[in-house]
């Protein structure tokens, strides 16, 4: 059996394990239009649902008349809150400890809110019937500003009237949700009061939306014969959906099967539970046939989970020579009509307390006040870990403002305040323990790569030329150094609705040496089927091409908390590596038996176990797998399988250094991105090509948010940006050529040292694009201006600074 062994490197390359740019195995079906998305699920007799939605942002629902809709041929049912109430499903709990109307119960709180659910024979009849449902509204005063909400006599949430205690402590006002405090307020104020320099700034991080290519939807199928409910849906956390569905419906969990098929992007939008899911399930239970609900783009933008909408007020103190001494941050968080933020339960403002960033800040204080308004609920982590984009934007703007206050170069100010390599693990003032980092090395590499001093010189020359009237273009240099906090998370402090945020992997090695591995996560485009197989290839010596990765079916996959917050690699990736090691441990015993030596006398070598000191004596994993099933080995159970549930000891802390060079047409407000350099350190790199793709995608969504992507409302609470005409999704034309780079600082507590990367470029990208715009106007006195930096707002900045003569 033992043929001439190919050399070690060739064998390793043949595995396509960690570190190689293996092509994405998913792309064959995606690029050929052979994906299987929720809307591709078509079942016999399937009915179609569609929503009657509120045109008003705040109104009392006086009456709903469904009679005309019911008369339309093909309409099976029209559900209203009254129909759901006997089931206790007219309201549902949110992930944030609040509750949310499934269908309007007496009033509506935002434009686009679900009022009635029409079920019909086909999608067209359903849409026709929606028009025939007559709803009588009485308009109520609309509040779209959280500061106004906290002053107003208007009670938005009448169901909570008189409740002074919320899910996260006392409520100060009938439109107030929670106050979340971290750090030492008194000590911070004392430092501020005695500081040599204090810079203050207020900034609004506008409301935006993850806008995945595929909108949300579900197909529910209640089989009344065997009592089983199957739900296909756009779920980033299918197991959580199963548990919640069981708790809400009373159907035992073993009788519910939740399937996330291919998902066309999530970016946080598909973490929560939406009324459409509940209504399609109820409709299927009522009718006994499958019911499909797929929302359209306008519904997705208008009613599903938004991101950001943070009003942030900061103070940062320093010595005269730029050493930061303290940070104070207050956030007024606009949560819309219901608090449906998707955060770990104990973190109502997510990980906003990472807002001390990459800097050694001895004392800090953060307070976040959540507020109700007449806007859609949500507050999800759009391509970032929980509220980390807000935190990084805040600190990276505060650094710029402090640099202006000090008259210092912003790159140098960062440099002298970075947490030093020898300080890790570093306990930050707001509680987190950063696992590892080497910020100075990354920063210096970035500054050198872009010739930072040369850029500053060129910029100064441009300013002079501008002042002489020789050009109407200004140059901006955007800097950002970010630290992400991902991989939620340790069960001791991270849970969702009480479910600890571990994750899992189950592996079965087949007798012929190929394998299937199932995980509790679910890919939405991240390429899990490719990268998790690479981890296993390296850990078990089975070629990645011989490993099937399966996720998203709760009947087959082990329990896990899903994919968001860059948690798949840090948590499920760790479970995968450890399950692989269990396989390897058993394989070692089998190999030793087959080679007739002691267990300790064999060692793993890429794809085989060899006898120590006698490498010509070995058993390949393929041989071992066959023996595991077909040979009676004393003291060892047949088979080769392993399961690992991983509770991470800490978060992981990827970081990066970004530089953006922009030219801005002062007269039209049109920015042109000349250069974007992104250095990412995500620890051990599993697939460099996928990392690069993730960086490109994350930066593009960062560009979108910084330069124009927003959910804007008028004073009546109408959504002004409800279609892709006005909601900015960049195309390849608007996107520059990104330069990617990296350093590698492995996570010390992760089994393979990986930290997660999918969201870093978004987290770091937004402030970098924004800083570039703001930097261009710094020589003319600009201190801060809010995003999004679309053409007219850039023009207005220039105009306000008197640059239009």
């Amino acid at each position, binding site marked *: 059996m033992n043929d001439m062994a190919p050399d070690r490197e060739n064998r390793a390359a043949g595995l396509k394990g960690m570190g190689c740019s293996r092509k994405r195995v998913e792309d064959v079906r995606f690029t050929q239009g052979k994906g299987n998305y929720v809307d591709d699920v078509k079942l016999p007799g399937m009915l179609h649902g569609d929503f009657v939605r509120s045109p008003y942002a705040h109104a009392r629902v006086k009456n709903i008349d469904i009679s005309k809709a019911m008369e339309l041929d093909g309409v099976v049912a029209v559900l209203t809150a009254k129909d759901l109430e006997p089931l206790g499903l007219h309201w549902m709990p949110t992930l944030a400890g609040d509750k949310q109307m499934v269908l309007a119960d007496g009033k509506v709180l935002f434009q686009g809110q679900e009022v009635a659910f029409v079920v019909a024979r086909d999608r067209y009849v359903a849409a*026709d019937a929606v028009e025939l449902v007559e709803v009588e509204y009485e308009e109520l005063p609309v509040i779209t500003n959280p500061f106004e909400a906290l002053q107003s006599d208007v009670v938005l949430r009448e169901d909570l009237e008189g409740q002074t205690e919320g899910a996260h402590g006392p409520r100060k006002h009938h439109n107030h949700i929670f106050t979340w405090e971290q750090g030492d307020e008194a000590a911070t104020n004392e430092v501020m009061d005695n500081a040599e320099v204090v810079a203050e700034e207020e900034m609004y991080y506008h409301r935006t939306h993850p806008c995945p290519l595929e909108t949300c939807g579900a197909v529910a199928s209640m089989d009344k014969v065997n009592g089983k409910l199957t739900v296909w849906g756009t779920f980033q956390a299918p197991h959580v959906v199963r548990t919640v569905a069981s708790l809400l419906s009373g159907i035992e969990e073993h009788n519910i099967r939740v399937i996330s098929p291919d998902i066309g992007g999530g970016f946080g939008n598909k973490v929560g539970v939406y009324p459409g899911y509940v209504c399609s399930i109820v409709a299927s239970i009522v009718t006994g046939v499958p019911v499909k609900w797929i929302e359209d*783009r306008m519904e997705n933008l208008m009613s599903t989970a938004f991101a950001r909408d943070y009003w942030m007020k900061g103070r940062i103190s320093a010595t005269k020579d730029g050493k930061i001494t303290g940070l104070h941050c207050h956030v007024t968080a606009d949560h819309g009509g219901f608090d449906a933020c998707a955060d770990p339960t104990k973190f109502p403002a997510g990980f906003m307390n990472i807002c001390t960033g990459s800097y050694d800040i001895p004392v800090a204080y953060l307070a976040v006040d959540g507020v109700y308004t007449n806007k859609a609920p949500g507050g999800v982590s759009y391509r970032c870990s929980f509220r980390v984009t807000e935190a990084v934007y805040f600190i990276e703007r505060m650094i710029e403002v402090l640099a202006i206050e000090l008259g210092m170069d912003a790159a140098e100010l960062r440099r002298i305040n970075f947490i030093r390599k020898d300080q890790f693990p570093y306990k930050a003032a707001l509680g987190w323990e950063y696992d590892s980092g080497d910020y100075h090395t990354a920063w210096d590499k970035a500054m050198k790569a872009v010739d930072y001093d040369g850029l500053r010189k060129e910029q100064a020359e441009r300013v002079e030329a501008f002042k002489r009237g020789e050009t109407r273009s200004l140059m901006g240099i955007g800097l950002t150094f970010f630290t992400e906090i991902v991989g939620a998370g340790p069960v001791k402090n991270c849970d969702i609705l009480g479910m600890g945020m571990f994750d899992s992997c189950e592996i079965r090695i087949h007798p012929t040496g190929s394998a299937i591995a199932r995980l509790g996560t679910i890919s939405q485009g991240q390429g899990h089927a490719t990268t998790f197989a690479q981890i296993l290839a390296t850990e078990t010596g089975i070629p990645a091409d011989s490993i099937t990765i399966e996720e998203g079916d709760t009947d087959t996959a082990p329990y896990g908390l899903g994919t968001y917050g860059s948690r798949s690699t840090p948590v499920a990736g760790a479970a995968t590596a450890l399950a692989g090691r269990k396989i390897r441990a058993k394989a070692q015993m089998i190999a030793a038996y087959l080679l007739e030596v002691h267990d300790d006398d064999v060692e793993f070598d890429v794809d085989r176990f060899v006898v120590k000191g006698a490498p010509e004596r070995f058993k390949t994993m393929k041989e071992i797998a066959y023996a595991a099933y077909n040979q009676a080995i004393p003291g060892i159970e047949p088979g080769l399988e392993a399961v690992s549930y991983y509770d991470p000891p800490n978060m992981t802390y990827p970081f990066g250094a970004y530089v953006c060079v922009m030219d801005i047409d002062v007269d039209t407000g049109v920015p042109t991105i000349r250069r974007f350099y992104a250095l990412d350190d995500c620890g051990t790199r599993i697939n460099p090509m996928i990392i690069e793709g993730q960086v490109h995608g994350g930066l593009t969504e960062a560009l979108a948010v910084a330069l124009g992507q927003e959910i804007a409302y008028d004073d009546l609470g109408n959504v002004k940006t409800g279609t892709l*005409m006005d909601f900015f999704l960049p195309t390849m034309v608007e996107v520059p050529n990104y330069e990617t780079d990296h350093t590698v600082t492995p996570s010390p507590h992760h089994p393979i040292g990986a930290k997660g990367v999918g969201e870093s470029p978004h987290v770091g990208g937004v402030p970098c694009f924004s800083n570039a715009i703001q930097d261009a106007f710094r020589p003319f006195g600009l201190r801060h201006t809010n995003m999004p930096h679309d053409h007219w707002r850039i023009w207005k900045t220039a*105009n306000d600074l008197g640059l239009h003569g």
Partner: protein
Amino acid sequence: MIPAAFDYYRPSDIAGAIALLQEHGDDARVIAGGHSLIPMMKLRMAEVPHLIDLQDIASLKGITISGERITLGAMVTQHELIDSAELAAKAPILREAALQIADPQVRYMGTVGGNVANGDPGNDMPGLMQCLDADITLTGPDGSRTVAARDYYEAAYMTDREDDEILVTVSFDAPKGGYAYEKQKRKIGDYATAAAAVQLVKEGGSVASASIAMTNLSDTPVWSEAAGAALVGTACDADAVKSAVAAMLNDIDPTEDNRGPVAFKRHAAGIVLARAITRAWDRA
């Protein structure tokens, strides 16, 4: 995004299409590329019980160049405008403008006739046709008539066309001199924040004639006769451009939308026009 039910027709000649329009009156609409009408139907902002597709009518197709006269069939696509070498030689401003409309997929379907006929202030072709002083030919039950593009537009989506008439061709004399189509937009696929079409003729170092039209800065396209006149006789220097811009600003009436407030749009219109004039002059 689900339209109401409609009947679909695909006549093979103009007469057949007009007969359907007469039969169904207000309940019928013709469809060319569909980029405006189909979204309106899906949003249920337009209910069209009888939809008449013009794509099988051969006489509406093709670019005809006869001497100095250029005639575009209503169903000529924006892609065909870009693709025609002969047209690019005779009237290069069409290619320059068409390349700034949306993206290739849209341009494969979007037509000259649909763009001109619909009266959407965001469309690029109406202003361009006013700049070129094009004639629009409409065919109805009583035969054909011709309207100047400069007289065709009454208000947003309101034009001189009767409900039972079909726009069949747009024709114009091959323009002379320098040209430019300058457009500021937020992104690919967007309507203009401001756009300017300029044709000018240079003789003996000064402007002999100039035609200027602006897009998406009023509820109709704006042919600014005064702006063109301000350039005539000048050497197109900075003062002349300034006068032309000032004259144009008297003629436009932009409204605030997500692209920005009125002050910004007026500023952008001035910048866009100044750049277009400068480019056209350099090419003259």
